[in-house]
């Protein structure tokens, strides 16, 4: 196994494109090294991206955020601006693993590992985040929800890697949140995850909403029907019920030892309700969450 640590995106893409074996990007390694150790993967080349400055920074131009793909969960948490604007994203990223894992785990790795249960992904989708992709033919952008196409399957082509996430400015009177369900208190893979982002107008009518679910299908889902139910409403109980039902309806989960299909479908609705409530509280400027 070869190890390279290029200092530019171009060089990294080059290495990826030129490799004839199984090259892999190495970010924090909290997925990759585990998979190598348990013989799931046996890459011929590891391309460590942590030396590429652009991938390690959070930039705040034009009101929004550009988060380098190799920024860790711990670094996200220390970014006051991001925490204030998108608490749901930061909280989701900080549910990943433990303090030790937080020091390594990156947003790019969370997405590119290709797990439908990745915690930060529904929060990023709800926020309307986009990904900047670099490849041999230059750069392109895709919405986060279009990156993962199936379990461990990505829309990236040979030689491509993720450079950064573009997160829009926090909408005025907007709020976001992420909740997941796991059977124990920490350190577990989501049975269901739910990210919500909302915006209200002056009289409290919902003008914008996105709701995304994790771990209920082969990839994270953006649930359009849930958003439809919320937009134009005052987020009254009836609208929230319809959105929660839409969340359940969108699920196409599997039965596994973490949870049955029926349970996941039920939990999706419960989490949708609770997540909407937290996002709404935040849109109203209330702090503190009630999980």
């Amino acid at each position, binding site marked *: 196994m070869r190890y390279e640590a290029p200092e530019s995106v171009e060089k990294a893409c080059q290495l990826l494109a030129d490799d004839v074996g199984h090259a892999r990007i190495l970010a924090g390694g909290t997925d990759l090294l585990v998979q190598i150790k348990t013989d799931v993967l046996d890459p011929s080349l590891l391309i460590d991206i942590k030396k590429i400055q652009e991938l390690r920074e959070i930039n705040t131009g034009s009101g929004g955020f550009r988060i380098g793909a190799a920024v860790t969960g711990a670094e996200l948490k220390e970014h006051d601006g991001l925490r204030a604007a998108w608490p749901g994203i930061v909280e989701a990223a900080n549910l990943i693993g433990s303090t030790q894992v937080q020091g390594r785990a990156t947003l790019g790795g969370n997405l590119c590992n290709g797990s439908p249960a990745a915690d930060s992904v529904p929060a990023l989708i709800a926020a309307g985040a986009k990904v900047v992709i670099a490849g041999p033919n230059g750069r392109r952008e895709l919405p986060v929800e279009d990156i993962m196409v199936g379990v461990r399957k990505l829309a990236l082509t040979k030689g491509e890697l993720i450079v950064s996430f573009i997160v829009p400015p926090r909408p005025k009177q907007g709020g976001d949140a992420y909740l997941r369900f796991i059977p124990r*208190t920490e350190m577990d893979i989501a049975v269901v995850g739910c990210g919500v982002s909302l915006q209200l107008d002056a009289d409290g009518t919902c003008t914008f909403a996105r709701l995304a679910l994790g771990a209920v299908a082969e990839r994270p889902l953006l649930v359009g029907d849930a958003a439809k139910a919320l937009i134009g409403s005052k987020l009254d109980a009836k609208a929230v019920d319809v959105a929660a039902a839409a969340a359940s309806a969108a699920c196409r989960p599997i039965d596994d030892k973490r949870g049955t299909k*029926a349970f996941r479908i039920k939990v999706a609705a419960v989490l949708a309700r609770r997540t909407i409530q937290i996002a709404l509280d935040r849109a109203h400027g209330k702090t503190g969450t009630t999980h």
Partner: protein
Amino acid sequence: MSDRSVPRYEAALKVTGRAAYEGEVPAVGLLHAALVEVPIARGDVVAVDASEAERTSGFATMVSYADAEPLKPSPATALIRDRAVHFAGQPVALVVADTLSAARDAARAVRVTTQARPSVTHMAQALNTAYVPAMVGRFPSVSNRGDATAALADADRVVRHRYETAANIHHPLEPHAVVCWWEGDKAVVHTSTQAVFGTRAMIAHAFNMPPADIRVISRLLGGGFGCKGQLWWPWMFLAMLAAKKTGRPVRLELTRAQMFRLVGRRQETVQDLALGFSTNGCLTGIAHHVTAQSSTHAEYSDATAVYTRYLYACPNVTTSHLLVRTNEPQPVPMRAPGTAPGLFALESAMDEAAVRLGFDPVDLRVRNFADHDQEAGRPWSSNSLRDCYCIGAERFGWARRPAQGTAVDGRWRIGWGMASTMYPAIRQAAKVRVQLAADGAVLVQCGTQDMGSGTYTALGQITADALGVPVDRVTVELGDTVLPDGPFSGGSQVTASIFPAAAAATAKLRATIAAMAIADEASPLAGQRLDDLEFRDGSIRSRSGNVGEPWANVLARKGTEGLEAEGESGATQHPDLTATSMGYGAVFVEIGVNAGLGEIRVRRVCGAFAAGRILNPLLARSQYVGGLVGGIGMALHERTETDRATGRMLGETLADYLIPTHADMPEFDIALIEEDDPHLPGSVKGIGMLGTAGIQAAIANAVFHAVGKRVRSLPIRIEDVLGRR
């Protein structure tokens, strides 16, 4: 905190990372080993071909059944001498190479040809082959007291249900490891084992060599919980064969995935339990029948229904155990063997009975207290179970228990539950050697090993107390077959076993020093009465005469290098006992069930335990808390499953096999109820198993109390609580 609460002897080593485990022992020319596994669940190995592996870089050698053939047949060598495959993932060869990754690469390059045969991958597929094992541990499989069938037919109320418990994996933090080499015909084996002497005996048998030519060393263990015993031997033997073949030291360490299938598990059980009561709440009949899994290459049964013979007063009790052989890994004892699954059934059923009969669960248990051992028909040596109920209930606030289904805290529905726990108090033979240096330093030695539960500390403390010196004057050596014979670490009996041996050794030394002092004209104690002397604060003193001197001075004046004495004690002689000895406990829990999601959190635990005299309350508390944590895991999370189609374990990682995390831990209130027990040396009983049993039922009972759902299968699944599966 009591002055008996001495911190761990090896605490500083462990927290500073300097503690050296046997798998880390350096050796010149060390080769690394990897096991070659086969995927089939049943069949035969036709050929093991290393020709490709031999070409990988760093390859040294491979050993397989051909090399193991000369070993003497025994259960410990069967798996490696035969070509039969008993379970998926069974190793059939071991490869050694210069580095671990080279060994793993080479192992992958070994071509194994197998002939697969139809396999049984779950008990349910072979219930028609169930059979009664001769014994369950040291107890008969079947018992009958009175006429339980008639009593159940005549009972005013009968609670009859099926309870199930999943297969659990021990998962000590430190995986099994061995670093071994040969010095001519002599073997040196550094390995993580709960039984250095048992390991030595099995090596001696397998390799047909004198025990004296084998040294087994296990000075520190990162946990064991029952899996660091016999099932490790075959894989360790392969490493020893490779060391012999290459003439170099060999190191084998199991991977976490291998820990799921190569070193044992808590067996899966299906238990049919019936309790008959009179309307006044007295048990009139009990039937407890257990069916459990064993493998096709060995036999083991937990004593699951055995404790049902003892816990409550009841004239009519029948119990039985059946085993079903499957092509799954072999079970072995796991912390609280028998009591953990068995008391889940019994103590859940008692709660169901309390609800049916309209009794408080504590009152029902007190009402059915067994004031003597009804199975053997003899008294208890001591039994403070009623104190456990009473003190536990008091500390927990049980009297304020809300009505079923009424307590809420925000989104959480609150439930309280309780259960009893018990475990036999037994001893094994042990020898302890104590050496006193003329400068007053004390060395105490016993070959037994410390699983991580505090044997170093306890032995140091016992010795220091007996000689009247501070514990830091005592050096403790354990875990080596060159030291005096000691017990295996299992059955919560090490402390109780070494206590009398240490007491005997120190008594001899005290007598010798005292005699020397009395006879020594230069001693202030010259001419004192022997029975008037005591050892305190490093000195020997006369109680009445108010004279004394450091005992080291007595030795120094005689110009002796020091003194040495060995003490010996015997194993419990079960047939001759005039009283039955057990430790007891009562555990009370508060849980919350999240209304929408069904997630269960244990919020508060109070355990009241009575297990003889407590040598070190700090250690005892830590043992109880650790045990309770394990019990919470068994109740709420731990389950390993076999893929029915392939026989492989599903998810061989700690991401799939869930155990409770720190954030899951409730507040623990531990009450240590001390007992005098005239039948036991020093009133010492074992404590390690008690916490791990009982709490499973207490949690299930609390779930019922919170949401009205009775869950009779462990681990409790959230779907069970929400009523959907």
